[in-house]
């Protein structure tokens, strides 16, 4: 998946074979994607063949497939293919660095399980005014892209408002001058190629007007 247009393409899906016939299965939207991811995680954590077989049946049933007469090997192959299909398919910059509050062991008192996903719904609904079912009907990468754009917009809106107040100006008591201090960016918004300028001692600088080569 290369970009936004691929992320919203309606043709996402694949063919599987059940009961000896080819069946086209569409990729899961966000709501179903989250459910299937939980089921797949339980599959990895389970240890007995019985529990794994029940989980595979559950997974395929959630994908609305008729497995009543499918052979065992067809079900296994379908599970493998669909699990791969419903993986995360795009590298969204916002998700490269998972926020600390998702991984932190010391959770705040208002934390609950799967709160991370509830914040997704909350952010998108607050911004766009969409209903929960509409949001859960988005493609997973599409939802992540919208969330990233929401966060980018929020950052710049906050920065603009902050720039109008004295909070963003740092007063230096020695020089009696104020210096604008931009709002710190989250790690995924920082361009890694342009690092901090290397500071050189003024005594080592050449004589004359030094023009930085940028």
């Amino acid at each position, binding site marked *: 998946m290369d970009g936004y247009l691929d992320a919203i393409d309606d043709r996402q899906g694949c063919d599987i074979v059940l009961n000896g016939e080819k069946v086209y299965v569409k990729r899961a939207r966000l709501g179903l994607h989250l459910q299937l*991811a939980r089921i*797949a*995680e339980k*599959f*990895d954590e389970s240890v007995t*063949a*019985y529990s*794994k*077989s029940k989980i*595979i*049946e559950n997974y395929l049933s959630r994908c609305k497939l008729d497995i009543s007469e499918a*052979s*065992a*090997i067809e*079900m*296994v*192959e379908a*599970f*493998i293919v669909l*699990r*791969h299909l419903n*993986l*995360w398919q795009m590298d969204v910059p916002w998700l490269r660095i998972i926020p600390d509050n998702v991984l932190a062991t010391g959770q705040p008192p208002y934390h609950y399980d799967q709160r991370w996903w509830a914040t997704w719904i909350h952010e998108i609904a607050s911004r766009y005014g969409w209903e929960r079912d509409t949001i859960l009907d988005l493609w997973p990468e599409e939802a992540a892209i919208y969330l990233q754009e929401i966060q980018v917009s929020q950052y710049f809106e906050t920065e603009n408002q902050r720039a109008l107040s004295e909070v963003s100006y740092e007063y230096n008591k020695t020089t009696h001058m104020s210096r604008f201090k931009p709002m710190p960016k989250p790690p995924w918004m920082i361009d890694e190629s342009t690092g901090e300028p290397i500071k050189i001692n003024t005594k080592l600088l050449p004589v004359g007007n030094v023009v930085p080569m940028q």
Partner: protein
Amino acid sequence: MWPLKPKPKRVVFGGESFEITPLNLKQTIELMLVLAPHLALIENYMPEIKQALAAKNGGNNRPELLRTIFLAMREDMRTLPGDMTKALSILCGVDDPVWLAKNAKPQEFIAALSVLDEVHDFGRLWQGIRGLGVSVGYRV
């Protein structure tokens, strides 16, 4: 005229005849869990295994090829009798792998290979084991 019911496939171990039926999902997963740790060992013979698994069922060479492979693997399989006997018991629908280990003869096993392959399709089973092993590594 009603279509004739296909004759059940049978194999003989220790003088007893066993009907070979397709595995259900639990048995398939059990077989995969038993064989998956030995994937790397068996894949040492990859060129021959690939050739055998790629051969069509109608190909006359396939049973012979499987027989050759398992004979060649005999030395390696000496060190893991438990898992291979367990796998064989699952494939044959025998509840007691210990009985099979005590009573089955190697010639019977070789003779049963083609029947087991016809019912269970070793090629698809093998791809399933590899795919399931890879899919377990998926983590968001």
